[in-house]
């Protein structure tokens, strides 16, 4: 970018380096993005992660299998149920434990409810990032109801610690299933309200359409998963394509981006995938409520739990993509090695590539549309 001064000298402009974060309202936590900008246009945006590193994987090697459960709450605090269940499923796969069916149903119910509440936060904080604060509070309001349900079943509102190796910590208390149904009836019409309020708002659409387009093959190449991958039009959902738990019993649609307001794989597609997935989750929970069998909720697991030596990799569909748990056992009470693959972290790979040439306001939109969460990135 050069111009001429009045005296005919070449005018030199300088690129500006801005630190976005780690303390910034729209980076969804302590993400630091080093922006090199030419005015408002970002020429380079390098994410700098690691401000929230707590060494969860190392902690996992120091505590027993059962003791690690509360730590998975901290893996993705907006979808702690999903992480709980992922850890339980992984260890059960490692130790080949049969889980009672009722427990699996309860897990699926809470996991899908948590997917709804997590997508609500994704939707709400995204709209707040775009400058509309009201939908955020509506989303929080609905999420509170989910939290009420979770508090009822497990006793906590954020760090649920509900799943156990071999089952769940407690059967659904009386009234829980009915209240869940009530919530679904209340919640389903709200999705249309969100769409009317903001999703198809002209300004909102313009902010998102054609921003940070990720073609399908690129999304696959970069290892994106979950709604971000589906936003690029790849119909890949572990719940359907690599079914685990009781998911095969349910009929649901895998929502993919359609490019309805711009190019396929833009921010708007990723956003809409989440909105539509909330509907699908409602559908799954409804089916689960209808089919849930009676029975115990905990398998027989020895108090001092020592899985046989071996290793396993289990992946499950979390709201922010695939959460893969690789756990190696040496036959002792603690995992020998634990590695967690999270959706948000892998998604950050493509961040630098897609943000080239966007504006600062778009960076916020990209972060929001990826729906990253920092404890998942840094673990």
């Amino acid at each position, binding site marked *: 970018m050069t111009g001429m001064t009045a005296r005919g000298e070449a005018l030199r402009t300088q690129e*500006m380096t*801005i630190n976005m974060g780690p303390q*910034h*309202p729209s980076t969804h936590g302590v993400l630091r993005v080093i922006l090199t900008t030419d005015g*408002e246009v970002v020429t380079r945006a390098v994410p700098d992660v690691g401000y929230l590193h707590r060494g969860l994987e190392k902690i996992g090697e120091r505590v027993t299998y059962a003791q690690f459960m509360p730590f998975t709450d901290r893996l993705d605090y907006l979808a702690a149920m999903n992480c709980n269940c992922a850890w339980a499923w992984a260890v059960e796969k490692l130790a080949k434990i049969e889980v009672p069916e009722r427990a699996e149903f309860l897990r699926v119910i809470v996991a899908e409810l948590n997917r709804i509440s997590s997508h609500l936060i994704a939707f709400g904080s995204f709209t707040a990032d775009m400058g*509309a*604060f009201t939908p955020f509070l509506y989303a929080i309001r609905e999420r509170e109801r989910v939290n009420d349900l979770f508090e009822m079943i497990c006793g906590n509102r954020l760090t649920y610690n509900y799943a156990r190796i071999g089952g769940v910590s407690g059967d659904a208390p009386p009234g829980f299933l009915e209240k869940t149904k009530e919530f679904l009836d209340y919640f389903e019409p709200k999705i249309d309200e969100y769409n009317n309020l903001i999703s198809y708002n002209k300004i909102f659409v*313009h*902010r998102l359409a054609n921003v940070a387009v990720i073609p399908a093959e690129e999304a696959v190449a970069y290892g994106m998963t979950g709604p971000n991958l589906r936003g690029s039009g790849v119909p890949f959902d572990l719940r359907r394509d690599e079914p685990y738990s009781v998911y095969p019993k349910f009929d649901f649609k895998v929502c993919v981006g359609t490019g309805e307001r711009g190019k396929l794989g833009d921010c708007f597609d990723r956003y809409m995938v989440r909105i539509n997935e909330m509907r699908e989750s409602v559908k799954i929970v409804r089916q689960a409520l209808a089919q849930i069998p009676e029975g115990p909720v905990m398998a027989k697991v020895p108090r001092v739990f020592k899985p046989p030596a071996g290793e396993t990799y289990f992946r499950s569909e979390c709201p922010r993509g695939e959460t893969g748990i690789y756990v190696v056992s040496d036959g002792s009470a603690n995992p020998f090695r634990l590695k967690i693959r999270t959706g948000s972290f892998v998604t950050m790979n493509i961040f630098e590539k897609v943000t080239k040439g966007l*504006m600062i306001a778009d960076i916020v939109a990209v972060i929001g549309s990826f729906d990253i969460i920092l404890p998942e990135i840094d673990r």
Partner: protein
Amino acid sequence: MEALARSLVNFVPVLGGVPLWTITLLVMVASAAVVLVFALTFEGVGSLVLRKVAGDIQARIGPNRVGPNGMLQFLADGVKLVLKEDIIPARADRLLFRLAPYFVFVGSFAAFVVVPFGVGLIAADLNIGIYYVMAVTSLVVVGILLAGWSSNNKWALLGGMRAAAQIVSYEIPVGMALIPAVLVAGSLSLQAIVKSQGGLFGIFGWNLFHDPFAFFSFLLYFTAAQAETNQTPFDLPEAESELVSGYNVEYSGIRFGLFFLAEFGDMFIVAALATACFLGGWNVPFVSVAALPPVWGNLLSLGVFLGKAFTMVLIMMWVRWTLPRLRVDQLMRMSWKYMVPLTFVNLLGVSLWLLLFHGKGIPQMIASLFG
């Protein structure tokens, strides 16, 4: 002012010995003080109402701890702002940093001078009223740019740059959208514009109903003015989710308070101009204010004017809590590709209408049909 001073001398003979210029000056100071007090009160109450409206819209309650039902929250806020430490960043340009809030505040406050609050309630009935408002509110851009530049903060600088581009771009559609009212009244004076809308029961004389073009220019003005005064959805200079807080990110204490007050002042000015130019100003429906005793006439017209203006402010708040924010290039595109051409077309339409129908609006034509 001098006339007012003269009448005051006539009214209170004791003042006869004092030179007239002294009294004029005193009257000026007094009326400025009255306007300032009004502006500050409005800004305080406005901030409270804004938060209450936000609460209502967002399914919550809003401030309700200070005073009955939170009514005194704005006092608490004001006291807090005054008492807070005034921090100047280490490497800021201290002079400009201190100066910037005054520019912004003065730019917004000076516009109150020509707002026609009632039949006789106007601090200064300038014959170039609208022009004056446009001119002094442009001062705000200088202040914001100074604030952004002097803070030695890149976010603030970006905010300042955005503000400059935005305010300069939107001044054109704002001006162009106000001109239809000027054309109808044949005067730039706000008082004259209000008076010109007095006919037909005080409702149908409004410029809003004058002709379709005038109606559209009201909408255009309202939109463009929100952008010019950095209200959501055009609050890019502040954009708390992108630029953290934009140009005022480094400000604290009363200096921040001045920015804050100016924001609400701007809000009122926009509403007041919309009221005066399109919604009949202080004209009371079905009542001839001029026929009433001056005190009652003034009070009634003041009430009506404030009622209309506050309704406009409420609508602005309502918009604010509904819409997301535009991106800076979209904002520019909206100005140059949509607002500017549309306002020009509108202006052309109004001019043609006035030419073809000899200055008569639709309601007048209907009224003349019925005799």
